[in-house]
């Protein structure tokens, strides 16, 4: 169970990082959300054999992480934890798509390997971007931001509550699984059946808590709309940030920058 505890602890760490004060943290949440969105669209819209043109996009997460004081080791660890998904998704590509594209020494590299590499690279880029967005912007700010950008009120409120109570729920899960572990003496306990019971129990507890929270809210005059005092300022530098990065992403998307650089250098040499 230690790994579960570790996970929850690290999630809390990411949350704490979002309360830092760096140039990246001070940006308007809308600027960061929009820029990340443009980044994601550009990255995922490449064709399936794209590898080289994706590489320049690494500039964005690297720059944001270093300016936003998000430790690289931490990001890589998080990336590894979710990587099995991407690894499994593309695992059959090299087997299914065996047409040889070019030779690396005597090894014929098949198209499948290239598309697999492309999947992994895209996974890395998109996950890093999401992690960095969360690590540099508190979720509250993100919610306020997307609400201002026209997302439905209900959606933003849901997200806010999800985030607030995920910590409470995680604590409950931990306590429950510790209680189970303590009485199962390193064995399987009573197998999978116990887990379904635990899940059902958690659901009931969550339901009861939701009711109490609602009572507490109506007690203080809740009428279906959460009012916040947060004032957001979309300053010129936020616009500059959004437009600047977006322009860079579009250039990366339209031109194969590594090839261009290669040509430029060979042009200089010859």
């Amino acid at each position, binding site marked *: 169970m230690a790994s579960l505890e570790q996970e929850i602890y690290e999630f809390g760490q990411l949350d704490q990082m979002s309360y830092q004060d760096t140039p990246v943290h001070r940006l308007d949440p809308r600027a960061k959300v929009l820029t990340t969105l443009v980044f994601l669209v550009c990255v995922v819209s490449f064709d399936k054999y794209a590898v080289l043109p994706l590489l320049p996009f690494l500039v964005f997460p690297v720059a944001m992480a270093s300016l936003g004081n998000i430790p690289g080791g931490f990001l890589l660890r998080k990336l590894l934890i979710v990587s099995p998904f991407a690894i499994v998704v593309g695992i059959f590509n090299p087997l299914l798509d065996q047409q040889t594209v070019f030779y690396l020494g005597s090894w014929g590299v098949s198209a499948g390997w290239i598309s697999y590499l492309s999947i992994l690279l895209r996974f890395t880029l998109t996950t890093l971007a999401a992690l960095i967005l969360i690590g540099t912007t*508190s979720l509250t700010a993100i919610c306020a931001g997307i609400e201002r950008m026209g997302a439905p009120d209900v959606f933003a409120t849901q997200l806010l*509550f999800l985030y*607030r109570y995920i910590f409470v729920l995680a604590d409950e899960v931990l306590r429950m699984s510790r209680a189970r572990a303590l009485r199962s003496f390193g064995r399987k306990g009573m197998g999978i059946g116990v887990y379904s019971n635990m899940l059902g129990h958690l659901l009931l507890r969550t339901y009861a808590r939701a009711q*109490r929270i609602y009572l*507490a809210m*109506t007690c203080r005059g*809740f009428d279906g709309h959460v009012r916040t*005092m947060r004032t957001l300022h979309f300053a010129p530098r936020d616009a500059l940030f959004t437009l600047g990065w977006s322009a860079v992403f579009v250039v990366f998307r339209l031109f194969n920058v590594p090839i261009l650089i290669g040509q430029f250098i060979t042009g200089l040499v010859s």
Partner: protein
Amino acid sequence: MSHHSIEARDLAFSYPDGTLALDGITFEITHGESVAIVGANGAGKSTLMMHLNGFLTPGSGSVRVGDVPVTKSTLPDIRRAIGTVFQDPDDQLFMPSVYEDVAFGPMNLGLPPDEVDARVVDALTQVDALHLKDRPPYRLSGGEKRAVAIATVLAMCPNALILDEPSSNLDPRARRRLIGLLSTFTHTKIIATHDLDLALALCERTIVMSSGRIAADERTSDIFANSELLDACGLERPLSMQGCPVCGTSA
């Protein structure tokens, strides 16, 4: 509108499964009184509390706050007049930061922003928690959470406070601080608790409940001196009124 007294008359309530939780409760609490509601587990304390702010509708009988009966149409006014502090602060602190949480009530009252700010600062200062205002609630200690939960209610400027087990899960010092804090409030207070010493320290009057009825409604000192009554209701004397466990002298 005066909200200064709280009155229950012949209050009865049973849960949908048939459990009779309240069975003819009648009392009146006047302005500025501090009343403890004590009783064994399952005596009906929580159910009674849920009636006072209109979360449950009585099966028969009525609750009045000041000259207003508690009904659906008067609920917003009633809930503004009576602040409820829940047993689990995690239920009460649902906003992302302490400041926003305390501001939640005043904002819903439709107050202008500078008035909201003044109330938040004032409420947090009263519970000595102003330094916590930018922290997210899930990063507070138990005592801090409790203090902030009380502030969220104070910010509504209620006439009366209902507190459900205010001293549960607090360490001795946090509990002592809480008692000190509550004793400074001039509001009408209704405190449901198992902490009989807290009741003794804060409330001049105590209502003892037993299986949905009022077993006694007297001065706190009289109630805790009545061993027969306490025994019949599954209670004990407050620790401060029991003999010293080390030297054996009686209090």
